[in-house]
């Protein structure tokens, strides 16, 4: 078979031609394997036509040609001619007025066409866009608005306005104009946004350094040894209590810490109980109290009733603090006493006046600096009826009880037990003790005090070392009735003493008041007899007081609603005041010989000044909160112009005296202001002289043969 090499490259199949050659690779493998030659050789080696499988398949519609025709050679040439294009296009030529064939027919065949949207940067449009962008940038950078740039912008923008879409993108201003990427105006859009950033704030703090302390020691073999030994010994001791102590005592300070120093318990609790802390706490408490009662404290110090200038004969009492304590609400205040050294400290005793309702009693020590809570609380088995501070030892407090015993307390003591107490064997009274009073130390230097009681005895108690010794000083014998049966042993009945007071100048002289209404003038030296007796009142005498300055005048008050002022030498009272209700207590003012105050069972306090008005009180004021509270006791303060009033509900009210109530007499110009006891006496004497002159003849006492003039000097 002839080899057709060059023609082999034709890809076009011969139309209708017989596939005379077949590639070797197309032939089935089997034929290749069965002894065929290489590909390089006879390419067109025809397989044996005898083989049925290798015989080419002839389609049915194939042209039937003879072999000679089959072997003809055809030449093919590749040209760029479009076979689809027409070859004989004829056009009418107007010049020649004939149809002429076109010499060249367009051979271009368009297979695919797509319109793009990129523009070349060097094309006119591209250049224009570039220029415009640079112009915008320039505008942004330079503040002055260059008109040129605007113009150049204007041009392209107007031109493009027609072409562009609505979306006019914002080009990002790059750092340099040239290196910017060109983005298509129509499709490209950029969006940017800025999230909200919370503002920053600086915070700084300074932390305290943790508390540290220093620790130092020296350790060596022998110290370890010693420590063990000592510990062991201690253990032994604790167990058996019969061990020989290894005498290894060093002077090392650290040895003191030998006991396993465990810090037990709450540090705060320990701190609170320590002494130094208690002082701080006390001060703190007082500060808080001062803050709470600040206005009262200001009043106490500075407030003076201005209205007193306008009313001559009147004064007023300004209520200050009210001292209350829970446990005393049911008890009545039975006595009040200021401390002799500490002018803000006072003691209040509580008990019950009711015979049927007797319960425990107590006495409290209050300070003006702390009105909310008492400084000291002493609880007793029976009601405390009276108390008195020792003038020289301000911590000693003598008190008398409802059950008749007396006791001496040391209020500075931690244990709230009395130092001395009288017992049934020791001469205690058989009836309530109504008053106790300290006296000057006796000849041996022992402290002693007096007590008076309803059993009719006035007893002197002496503190001898650790004992309380008693001596019956006076017995209040009742006057024997005139008619007495001769038979029978005359029993000496005793009256009931309720109060007494010792003369300030003559210590041995004292007066005692009784329940029968009599006042006896007695002396310490005379045991059985009274020096004198006054038929003072119709009912029990509740208080007798010597005048602070005048040695001969005293005042008494009673349940028969009256207050009477007496001269010791005269049987009849000098002044009598009816106060409309049982008078619980009366007391002279410490600063004036003519001022005294009384408190009554209807809750009123009366203040009199004989210098101003002899018959009417300067002040009559209800001081209790609730009605039907009886006032039981009243005392003046030595240094401050305040009075304390106790009532039967367990409250103590403090009141400030207005200026009118604490007047000193007006001084004529040029004269020195008279001061001191002599002046006070003179003042009182003047008053007494005024009232006494007309009554002169009637009031002579039995014993004294006095002239009408009252002795002006003290004896």
């Amino acid at each position, binding site marked *: 078979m002839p080899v057709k090499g060059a023609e082999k490259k034709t890809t076009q199949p011969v139309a209708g031609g017989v596939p005379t050659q077949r590639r070797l690779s197309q032939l089935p493998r089997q034929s290749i394997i069965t002894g065929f030659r290489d590909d390089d050789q006879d390419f067109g080696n025809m397989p044996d036509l005898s083989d049925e499988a290798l015989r080419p398949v002839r389609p049915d519609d194939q042209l039937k040609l003879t072999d000679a025709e089959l072997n003809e050679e055809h030449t093919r040439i590749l040209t760029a001619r479009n076979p689809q294009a027409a070859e004989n296009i004829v056009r009418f030529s107007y010049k020649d007025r004939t149809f002429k064939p076109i010499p060249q027919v367009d051979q271009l065949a368009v297979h695919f066409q797509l319109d793009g949207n990129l523009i070349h940067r060097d094309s006119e449009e591209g250049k224009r866009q570039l220029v415009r962008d640079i112009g915008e940038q320039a505008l942004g950078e330079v503040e002055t608005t260059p008109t040129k740039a605007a113009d150049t912008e204007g041009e392209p923008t107007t031109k493009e306005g027609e072409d562009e879409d609505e979306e006019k993108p914002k080009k990002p201003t790059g750092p340099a104009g040239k290196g910017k990427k060109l983005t298509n105006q129509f499709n490209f859009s950029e969006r940017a946004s800025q999230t909200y950033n919370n503002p920053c704030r600086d915070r700084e703090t300074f932390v305290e350094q943790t508390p540290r302390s*220093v620790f*130092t*020691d020296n*350790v*060596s*073999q022998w110290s*370890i040894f010693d420590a063990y030994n000592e510990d062991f010994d201690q253990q032994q001791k604790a167990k058996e209590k019969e061990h020989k102590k290894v005498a290894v005592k060093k002077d090392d300070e650290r040895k003191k810490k030998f006991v396993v120093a465990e810090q037990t318990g709450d540090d705060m609790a320990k701190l609170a109980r320590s002494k130094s802390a208690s002082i701080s706490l006390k001060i703190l408490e007082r500060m808080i109290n001062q803050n709470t009662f600040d206005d009262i404290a200001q009043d106490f110090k500075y407030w003076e009733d201005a209205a007193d200038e306008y009313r001559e004969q009147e004064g007023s009492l300004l209520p200050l603090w009210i001292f209350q304590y829970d446990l005393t609400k049911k008890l009545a205040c039975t006595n009040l006493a200021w401390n002799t050294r500490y002018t803000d400290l006072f003691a209040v005793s509580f008990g019950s006046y009711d015979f049927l309702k007797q319960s425990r009693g107590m006495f409290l020590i209050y300070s003006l600096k702390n009105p909310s809570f008492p400084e000291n609380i002493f609880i007793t088995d029976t009601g405390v009826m009276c108390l008195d501070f020792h003038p020289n030892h301000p911590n000693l407090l003598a008190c008398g009880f409802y059950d008749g015993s007396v006791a001496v307390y040391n209020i500075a003591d931690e244990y709230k037990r009395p130092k001395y107490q009288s017992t049934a064997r020791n001469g205690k009274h058989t009836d309530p003790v109504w008053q106790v009073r300290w006296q000057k130390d006796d000849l041996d230097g022992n402290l002693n005090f007096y007590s008076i009681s309803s059993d009719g005895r006035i007893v002197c108690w002496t503190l001898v070392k650790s004992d309380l010794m008693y001596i019956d000083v006076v017995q209040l014998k009742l006057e024997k009735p005139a008619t007495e049966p001769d038979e029978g042993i005359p029993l000496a009945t005793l009256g009931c003493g309720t109060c007494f007071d010792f003369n300030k100048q003559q210590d041995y002289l004292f007066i005692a008041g009784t329940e029968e209404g009599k006042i006896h003038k007695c002396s310490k030296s005379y045991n059985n007899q009274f020096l004198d007796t006054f038929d003072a009142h119709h009912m029990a005498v509740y208080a007798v007081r010597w005048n602070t300055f005048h040695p001969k005048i005293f005042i008494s008050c009673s349940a028969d609603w009256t207050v009477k002022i007496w001269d010791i030498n005269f049987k009849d009272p000098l002044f009598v005041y009816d106060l409309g209700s049982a008078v619980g207590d009366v007391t002279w003012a410490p600063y004036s010989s003519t001022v005294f105050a009384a408190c009554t069972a209807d809750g009123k306090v009366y203040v009199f000044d004989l210098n101003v008005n002899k018959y009417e009180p300067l002040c009559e004021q209800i001081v209790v909160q609730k009605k039907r509270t009886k006032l039981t006791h009243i005392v003046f303060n030595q240094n401050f112009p305040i009075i304390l009033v106790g009532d039967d509900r367990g409250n103590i009210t403090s009141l400030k005296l207005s200026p009118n109530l604490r007047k000193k007499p007006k001084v004529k110009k040029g004269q020195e202001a008279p001061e001191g006891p002599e002046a006070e006496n003179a003042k009182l004497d003047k008053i007494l002289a005024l009232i006494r002159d007309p009554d002169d003849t009637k009031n002579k006492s039995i014993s004294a043969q006095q002239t009408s003039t009252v002795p002006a000097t003290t004896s």
Partner: protein
Amino acid sequence: MAAEGGEAETQQKEESKRHTYPLVRTCDMNDELKTECMELCVTACEKFSQNNESAARMIKETMDKKFGPTWQCIVGEGFGYFIEHEVKSLLYMFFGGTTAIIVWKCA
């Protein structure tokens, strides 16, 4: 003489027996902290009875892990010291008759 010598020996033995338990000399710690620390010290000293350094290392590192950073520890038989410690973080004890241990916390 022999009896006395024997007595002295037994006494010594007794004494050495006495001194093996841990004896706290100074402690400025809360109770539970104290017990844990003591146990730790005893364990460490028993474990590293020959090597004080390892014992101290163990104590210090365990304390750091358990109770917070910067504990210091010294284990020894004879030394003097002057230290500053945070309040409520000091333990000074003897152990085994010969060793003293001091543990404190200070940044």
